[in-house]
């Protein structure tokens, strides 16, 4: 252990190593670019409108899962209110899209910012709590927001603050950006917005706030002893998560075109946490896996005539499995287990041939 201790203490003048890029950085960037090009250009050609719509939802919820992943995986704050935050983003976007003729991109940005402010405000009382208490307080908050939404309803082109006129039979659709009015085009639009949000989060995770969050997650005293203003950085995490979730809400408003409060349930936040844990809260890829589980899987089951209610059971088992055997989630476990399987198969194969040789 620790062979480096054998060397005597050296003077404090090491040759500063030149900053080096991560190994295989370019290879990874190339693979991701090709994959992204396929998703944006190829995928809408291959899929039916049914699955394109499902994939648009995946793009939206990947961003929501990403935001929750920042809170749970990076900072260690369990929030059970993310579906309510998403609803706030969708509400603000719908209201703005009906009330103004602002470009869609502006509406997305403003929704993100307003949701960020509200999301950060509601997280204030939670600043002194962690674990179960934080989860409970955010869950209750989500419940409260759901109740308000149910009585206020989503805007459907009416007047006043709520923009709800009651005549939902002839309610106009929520508008989409001019460049993305069709479903395939809107899917591409949602993916591009999603990629921007992923880049925004990565820019945080890989730099100063990411390091501060890693310290806070492991030990708040250690973080404070390192000069980190833990309250500020926790608020920052809530702000970032709320911003990307608000943006996702705006994209969701344009995707479904009619918003109903019944579609935003308190328990959705719990389901969201379950899939984020299953996908892998410590990796940004886990957010994509989580969104596929949450949105694509029910679409496939529906298409096959299986009730999506089975998913609740499946997610329950999935969370148990993840918590007991793979805290880092599917995104980490699957490649590892496949690698193990491969080694197992190849070593068996080798042993078999060796046995054959020895017996012949």
């Amino acid at each position, binding site marked *: *252990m*620790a*062979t*480096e*201790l*054998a*060397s*005597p*203490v*050296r*003077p*404090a*003048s*090491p040759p*500063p*190593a030149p*900053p080096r890029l991560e190994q295989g950085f370019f290879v990874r960037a190339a693979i991701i670019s090709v994959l992204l090009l396929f998703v944006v250009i190829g995928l809408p050609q291959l899929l039916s409108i049914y699955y394109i719509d499902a994939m648009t939802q995946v793009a939206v919820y990947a961003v929501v899962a990403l935001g929750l992943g920042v809170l749970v995986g990076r900072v260690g704050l369990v929030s059970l209110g993310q579906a309510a935050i998403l609803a706030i983003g969708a509400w603000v976007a719908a209201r703005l899209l009906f009330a103004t003729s602002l470009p869609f991109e502006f509406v997305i940005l403003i929704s993100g910012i307003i949701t960020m402010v509200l999301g950060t405000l509601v997280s204030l009382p939670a600043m002194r709590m962690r674990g179960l208490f934080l989860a409970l307080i955010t869950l209750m908050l989500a419940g409260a927001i759901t109740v308000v939404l149910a009585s206020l309803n989503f805007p459907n082109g009416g007047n006043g603050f709520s923009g709800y006129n009651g005549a939902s039979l002839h309610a106009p659709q929520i508008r989409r950006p001019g460049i993305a009015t069709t479903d395939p085009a809107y899917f591409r639009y949602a993916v591009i917005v999603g990629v921007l949000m992923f880049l925004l989060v990565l820019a945080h995770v890989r730099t*100063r706030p990411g*390091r*501060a969050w*890693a*310290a806070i*997650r*492991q*030990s708040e*005293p*250690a973080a*404070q*002893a*390192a*000069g*980190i*203003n*833990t309250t500020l950085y926790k608020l920052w995490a809530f702000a970032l998560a709320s911003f990307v979730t608000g943006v996702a809400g705006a994209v969701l408003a344009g995707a479904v075109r009619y918003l109903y409060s019944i579609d935003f349930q308190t328990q959705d936040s719990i389901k969201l946490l379950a899939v984020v844990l299953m996908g892998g809260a410590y990796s940004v890829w886990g957010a994509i896996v989580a969104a596929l589980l949450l949105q694509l899987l029910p679409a496939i089951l529906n298409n096959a005539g299986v009730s999506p209610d089975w998913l609740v059971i499946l997610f329950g088992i999935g969370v148990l499995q993840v918590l007991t055997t793979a805290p880092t989630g599917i995104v980490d476990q699957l490649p590892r287990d496949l690698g193990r399987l491969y080694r197992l198969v190849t070593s068996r194969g080798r042993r078999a041939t060796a046995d054959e040789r020895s017996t012949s």
Partner: protein
Amino acid sequence: MIEVSDLTVRFGGVTSLDAMSVTFEKGTCGLIGPNGAGKTTFFNVLSGFVRPAAGSVSADGENLLKMAHFRRARWGVRRTFQTEQAIEGLSVYENVAMIHEHSKLAGASRRDDVLAAIALVGLDADPDTKVRTLGAGARRLVEVARAIVGKPRVVLLDEPAAGLPDRETEHLGQVIREIPEHTGALVILVDHDMSLVSSCCGVTAVLDFGKLIASGPTAEVLRNEQVVRAYLGTEEVQA
């Protein structure tokens, strides 16, 4: 320099520090005492995790107790923890750089300062190695590197040698002795390893049940009858 006067800390009915008054001048100073004597509580007061019931602490003439905990670290109060707290998910470099980027030091000198601190503690691991892959001894050194990077003013080492084999403790002692000279910081060392304390510390203070029972040159303090009694219990053991 740290001047502590009449420092009292109470947790409910327990008085962890009882009107402690002591001055740590410069260099490496020891702080010893039996388990539960209040050594870690004293460190926690200095780092701002515990609010004292009474008393004052001045560091280089500034009232330390007035500063928020994270500001104390920025000012220059650095520490290691009894249970080592190197951040597992980060690399060695990031662990040390984290302190630097939350201090008032210029970002331009960060890379050099961080690598210098890693070199000073004699950690030969690649700076890009994740801390979770390192052994206990190396993690301790990462923690010490964090405590000395940049411009530390007061370095608090809370049982840095706990659980380390002799060879690693010896190396750690060498590192600790170099800190004041290289950084100009005052080092306060808490440890139960008396050979480490005697080899590093010119002066030592002794706590027992929250009370300062002795302070002065280390060799004298360790011979002090009251100190021996505090550690060994009764004279029968001595005989």
